[in-house]
């Protein structure tokens, strides 16, 4: 059973040896295909990572995310468009369908043009809000690039992103050098709803705020959002693990800002981190990092003298069982053993309606190898029959959602699995009682038959 699973897992690995785990067809949507020169480094990086890029404009007749009901592309990059809508081929419905069909989207915004309404409604569906009137600009009077935006303060210089919580693995800022900053030129900030599917990647500094340069140039009365509520880049992972990344400034992906020299407010010169950041954001969005895979799941009876068959459909109450799950993590073209981040735990639930057990899964070196880590837990089944699930529910920001459910029945004790009476010392007196009754009865019968003739004589005598 296990080897079979491994075989299929390996087969799968060879089938998708491409750069991304979900495919390499990447669609780049630009207002004008000629604009791709602006992002040549970024797109070149993608191409060099193995993606097959296609370019379309929103208005193009031939643009279609689906072909014959199947996804025509695996990933989409949407660059800002000056149009009010994105046309009939990129309606919010289509984009949502694309996500539901496991397609990944990288969306970029720009403050230079108002955001298309189609994008606004899509974002509204996944609980991301953009500034009113589809226009906004993030400025920060304390963290700007003194070299290029000394007046307008609209090129923000940010420290490389770090993980927002201790238990979340840092995917986006790990490659940053000591003297590198993230430049965020003329971008749009968004606010995120509090859903668990959304995670900010880059949050604005405390002193940043967003305003509408067209209407609020003079007076700023109603701030859309400020400080860390303003997400400059955000990640959204749907339940089916399709990914959607939002980058507030398309410009930060342009060649101009890749490896550019900037000057902080303090006057210090620094290099931009943008190129590495762009690689990492696109890599995350297009399933190159943070992808988890369940290689196999196995559970078996863990009792002495029992045939420990793999994955039986039925157990008995109070059996000892062992559950093992093998996990791999994909990181830039290789699968490696997944190790649970420090401060976090992988847990197994054994549940019927509600969990009866919630146990930590520990690394099982015997079944692990560099490509796959096995986590295991052994426990005694509860004293309750029913249909139970072995459930691993591991949903962490930026990691593929893991929700593995293996259903088993837990039956009651069969009639011959109870301890026999003679095993229970308490029953001995009663066994002796029965034994005494039976022997007494036998003796009685023997005596009775032995005494029969005399008795008969007596009877005859009496009657006479």
């Amino acid at each position, binding site marked *: 059973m296990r080897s079979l699973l491994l075989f299929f897992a390996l087969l799968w690995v060879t089938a998708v040896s491409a750069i991304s785990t979900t495919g390499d067809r990447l669609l780049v949507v630009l207002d004008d295909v000629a604009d791709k020169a602006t992002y040549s480094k970024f797109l070149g990086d993608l191409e060099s990572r193995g993606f097959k890029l296609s370019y379309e404009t929103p208005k193009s007749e031939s643009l279609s995310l689906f072909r014959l009901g199947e996804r025509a592309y695996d990933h989409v990059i949407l660059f800002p468009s000056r149009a009010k809508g994105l046309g009939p081929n990129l309606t919010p419905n289509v984009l949502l369908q694309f996500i539901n069909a496991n397609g990944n989207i990288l969306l970029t915004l720009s403050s230079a043009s108002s955001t298309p309404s189609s994008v606004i409604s899509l974002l509204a569906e996944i609980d991301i809000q953009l500034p*009113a009137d589809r226009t906004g600009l993030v400025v920060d009077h304390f963290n700007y690039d003194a070299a290029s935006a000394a007046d307008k303060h609209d090129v923000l210089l940010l420290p490389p992103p770090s993980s927002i919580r201790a238990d979340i693995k840092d995917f986006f800022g790990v490659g940053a050098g000591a003297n590198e900053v993230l430049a965020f030129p003329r971008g749009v900030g968004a606010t995120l709803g*509090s859903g668990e599917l959304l*995670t900010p990647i880059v949050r604005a500094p405390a002193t940043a705020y967003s305003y509408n340069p067209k209407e609020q140039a003079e007076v700023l009365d109603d701030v859309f959002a400020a400080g860390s*509520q303003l997400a400059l880049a955000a990640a959204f992972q749907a*339940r089916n693990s399709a990914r959607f990344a939002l980058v507030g400034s398309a410009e930060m992906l342009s060649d101009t800002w890749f490896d550019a020299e900037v000057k902080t407010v303090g006057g210090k010169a620094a290099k931009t981190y943008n190129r590495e950041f762009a690689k990492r954001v696109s890599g995350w969005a297009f399933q190159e990092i943070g992808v988890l895979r369940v290689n196999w799941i196995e559970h078996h009876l863990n009792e002495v003298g029992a045939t420990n068959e793999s994955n039986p459909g039925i157990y008995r109450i109070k059996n000892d069982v062992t559950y093992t799950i093998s996990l791999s993590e994909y990181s830039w073209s290789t699968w490696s053993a997944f190790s649970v981040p420090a401060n976090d735990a992988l847990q197994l639930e054994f549940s019927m309606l509600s969990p009866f057990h919630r146990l930590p899964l520990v690394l099982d070196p015997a079944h692990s190898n560099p490509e796959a880590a096995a986590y295991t837990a052994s426990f005694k089944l509860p004293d309750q029959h*029913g*249909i139970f699930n072995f459930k691993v529910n591991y949903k962490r920001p930026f990691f593929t959602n893991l929700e593995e459910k293996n*259903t088993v029945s837990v039956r009651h004790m069969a009639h011959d699995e109870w301890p026999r009476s003679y095993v229970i010392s308490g029953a001995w007196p009663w066994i002796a009682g029965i034994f005494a009754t039976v022997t007494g009865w036998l003796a009685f019968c023997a005596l009775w038959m032995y005494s029969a003739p005399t008795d008969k004589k007596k009877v005859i005598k009496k009657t006479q």
Partner: protein
Amino acid sequence: MSAEPLQALANVGKGESTRTLLRVVILFLIAGAAVASRLFSVIRFESIIHEFDPWFNFRATKYLVANGFYSFWDWFDDRTWHPLGRVTGGTLYPGLMVTSGAIYHALRALTIPVDIRNICVLLAPAFSGLTAYATYLLTNEMTPSPSAGLLAAVFMGIAPGYISRSVAGSYDNEAISIFLLVFTFYLWIKALKLGSMLWGALCALFYGYMVASWGGYAFITCLLPLHSFVLICMGRYSTRLYVAYTTWYALGTLASMQIPFVGFLPVKTSEHMPALGIFGFLQLLAFLDYVRSAIPGRQFQTFLWLFAGGTFGIGLAGLVIATSAGVIAPWGGRFYSLWDTSYAKIHIPIIASVSEHQPTAWPAFFFDLNMLIWLFPAGVYLCFQQLADEHVFIVVYALFGSYFAGVMVRLMLTLTPVVCVAAAIAVSNVFDAYLIVKSPSTEDRQVEDVSEAVAKKAKSGLKSTSKPVVGVYSLISKGAVVSAMTVYLLLFVLHCTWVTSNAYSSPSVVLASKLADGSQHIIDDYREAYQWLRQNTKDDAKIMSWWDYGYQIGGMADRPTLVDNNTWNNTHIATVGKAMSSKEEVSYPIMRQHEVDYVLVVFGGLLGYSGDDINKFLWMVRIAEGIWPEEVNERAFFTPRGEYRVDAEASQVMKDSLMYKMSYYNYNNLFPPGQAQDRVRGARLPEVGPTLDVLDEAFTSENWIIRIYKVKDLDNVGRDHAAASAFERGLKKKKVMKKRGPRVLRVD
């Protein structure tokens, strides 16, 4: 009907062997008639398992045949009561399945390959033939008249009260239990009459079989002690009674405890305590009787009686104390409802909701027993006149059975045998008096008077034995009475046939209706829907429906269900009731938690099929209210004026309930705008039908009787279902940001 030629023929062939031969032939004909009249359902429809419970029995039998007895015994059924499962092997009465399994294997051994389904379908008719024979035996114990037994057998064979539960396809516990009931009674009478341990042991063994077959065994458990008690109170204690009763009780109780489902109940529940009490009481009596026989002395005797009475009282008090202290389980709810018919309605809606637990309507007695019901008192009266031990039994049984038949519809079944016996005694008495061709001469009369007088002196028995013999002299009166009786009997046969073919032969899985031209039209929505489930859903797709359909889904669609007709877990049923009667937002988490994949509802509005879920809906509400009184409120489902309506006037809670929405979803589209009509409740539905956010319509059968909905998964991008389906319908989120109130800040 058969008595008349019998008598005539018996007069012709006076030899004993001829009579026996005739009797055997007649009994075989009776058995044939009993079987034949039960085959209407097979002829009208097909060889199919009926109704609800039989589907489970059928499924269990198939499991037994496929997996053998031991795995049947230990069967843990993970396809019902999801996710609790059911310890089926330990919670059913295995007698029925084991019987048909044994028959199946026996036929196999005889190289007769028969489909197990056909055995199951035909088991009830086959046993009805045996029941007729058992009734014959029982009646023969009651009266010396040779015709009474045969008449009783005929009555039993075709009485609708018994046919209602034993037509072909009605593969239920009652199918074999009634035979066992009657036969156990016969053995009991036999044991009592002979005072034989062997008959007592046989009685106990058949009692054990009965316990293995039907929960109604408690009827025997209570009736035999009652009979004994009445006999003792009448001063008819005898050593025969002691032998018969104690042998039966000692062996029968042990036998009943071998059934896993019964287990320790015989020593733990109140239902079984009378039997135990009488058992102890008899020991005392026997001992005292022995002492009394040893020592004469009047004051001693009176003391002994006092002593016995005192012990009985102490025993009773002890029982009461033990019950209140919880050592002995109090009476089960079903038994309370036997004493107080409104008890169940108030306290246990789940029991009250079953139609066969309703009190019997008076016409039902006539419908099920026809003329037997007025012959019955006459027969009981005749028993009173003779009043030997066995006649006391008939009297006690008649009283006991009549009461229970009046309380619960389905206990009509236990009344039927005694009605048949009593009526047969009455009819045979009439025939014995009027079917003698020879008129009694005066000499005869004198001779009889003399013999009567002698008997009187010798016996000095009850008054009734000294009645003068009255002869019938006129042939005209004889002819009139006999022909009237014959006409009655023929009418009875007509009635029985009519009732059987019209009322009791419908499988209820398949419905029949008459078309305008009089031809029969079969409505097969149930099987259509179950077949759809079987072919289009995952093998382990969980189906949520009201419990009525649980067994059928398990049997026909072979899919796991949440609740079924084995209503062992009230909370689980209430959970389903709550899911059905709540708003979608409340129901959805319940369905998710129970891993429901499909929801099945029965809707009769299009066809006018009144047994649908909307009509049962109030029971769901009541049962749910019993567990969650603060979340489900029955009153809220009525209009302010207290009406139960489904049209535009219906209360908002009603309209929001999942059941309502599932029933009427898309129903409007069948009709021109504003014309939607519910034919069961005769209501015009509101113009705009309900919307469903958490369910997708998956299947609707031809006549809309069964509607199946698929439970949606959680929304992929984390919206709630209402928002998601609003988006699907093209309603964009309207400026969520502009909503009033403070914005919710994200914290992380």
